[in-house]
């Protein structure tokens, strides 16, 4: 009888603890990333939240042998950490997709874009402050293009090691803008340009886990 009471008490306490933790998570504030509004009172983006946004300004990959331009597409990331203001948040970028039908290429030897997808996942780190920035590392963007020989060439562009591309975060657009960020060929045919720059914007970025509220950086 005593054992049963203890067990029931423990179970009740455990449930209460779980509810308390969950409640704190959904209502926590003061993080680098928040939803709905900026500021110390705004609700945090939670670990595991899925953030997504459309291409808002053209993705343009410029090289010495031409450029690839895409006017529509989608960004998706999952929040991994969300530190207190003054620190950083991290996310796993799982999608950096462009709609091939809305892409063009002037890269020598290519005639059209077949697909633009992230290869694996990239790492994102949000730093706040006066110039909030999304630092992207381990980015491998796989671009498949139709060639003048009617077959496909696949070029992987991105950054490896400690190299990164940086995007400026904005609470006005709730998005990120990359401007002439250096990327290089990771793998692919000799038809693939070896270096280039990437520009483009994604906005608004919303938290689909929290009613698709717009995200803010503090």
């Amino acid at each position: 009888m005593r054992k049963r009471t203890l067990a029931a008490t423990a179970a009740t306490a455990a449930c209460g603890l779980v509810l308390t933790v969950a409640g704190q998570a959904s209502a926590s504030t003061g993080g680098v990333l928040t939803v709905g509004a900026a500021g110390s009172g705004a609700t945090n983006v939670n670990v595991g939240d899925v953030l997504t946004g459309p291409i808002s300004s053209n993705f343009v990959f410029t090289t010495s042998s031409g450029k690839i331009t895409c006017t529509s597409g989608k960004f998706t990331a999952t929040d991994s950490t969300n530190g207190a203001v003054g620190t950083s948040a991290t996310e796993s970028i799982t999608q950096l997709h462009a709609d091939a039908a809305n892409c063009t290429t002037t890269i020598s030897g290519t005639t059209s874009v077949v697909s633009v997808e992230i290869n694996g996942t990239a790492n994102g780190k949000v730093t706040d402050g006066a110039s909030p920035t999304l630092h992207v590392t381990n980015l491998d963007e796989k671009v498949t293009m139709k060639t003048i020989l009617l077959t496909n060439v696949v070029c992987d562009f991105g950054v490896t090691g400690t190299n990164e591309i940086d995007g400026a975060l904005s609470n006005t657009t709730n998005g990120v803008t990359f401007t002439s960020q250096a990327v290089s060929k990771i793998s692919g045919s000799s038809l693939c340009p070896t270096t280039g720059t990437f520009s483009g914007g994604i906005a608004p970025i919303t938290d689909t886990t929290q009613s698709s509220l717009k995200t803010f950086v503090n």
Partner: protein
Amino acid sequence: MAAASLFHRLKHRAAAAAAAAFALVAVAASPAAASTPQPSGPYAGMGTCPVASPQLQNPNNAVVGCVVATIGGGGFTVGSTKVNFSSPMTVKFGMYWAADGPTVTFPDETTAALFSTATPTDGTELSASPLNVPIPGLANFWPGVTSAIVLIEPAGPVTAFAPLSAGENYPLFKLPIKLHLLNAFLGLNCYVGSTSSPIVLSPTAGTTSPPPPNRPATGDPGSIAITADPNGYGASVIDFAGATLVDNALSVPGAHGCGILDSADWIVNSLFGVPSAPGHNTVTLTGVGAAIAVDTSVSDLTTAINATRK
């Protein structure tokens, strides 16, 4: 007296055979006379492209093209013999591929079309200067007598031409050849390799996977540039430059036709170390450049080439 007479006869025979060998070489190496205006600019050297051939005119073709490739240097090691290419070689042919033609897909998911080829209008697919190959164990003081003059001759058309495989671990093409050995004592029909049993070169700008004792060797795709037709036609020209191609997995058959009734075949085999199994031979082609004019329409390609004739 008899020995002197025999020496005298042999000397004359050697001289006659050497002269015949050099005459043959001279004929083989002499360029065809240019009687009509030749293509220029990006199509230079493509005057013998077989654009009117049934192969390139086939309406099922999705892509057609003309190829002029030069090989600046390199060499080969066959068995125990090592020879450097002393002067450039030129390879010319037409190419065609049907939309449902063969392709190869690489690990990075790039796909390359495998083109079939057509012989140039003058029949000269491969132009190579003769090589003076010393005979092992002999001081070479009399080329053609104390050495073998070797002509590299095609033994069939180029096949499986995959220009977009440059940089992949895959052969850019397969080129069957035979080595024509000219020597005073070997006669005029001494060959290593034949049309039915050729030496097949399968060089890559990537990395080879030979059987031992050879080890993987890596080529270099060099640079690639693609330009549109200068006169606005639909053709494009792919230019490769500075590439290095390697093949060290090829096999080399034995000699045949050497000496009277093939009596010297065994000597050639013994001296040069042939036949030689894969893993014991290497061909390296350096300074490789190629101009490849491609178009989806053979009539457009023909017009584009003709528009540059001067």
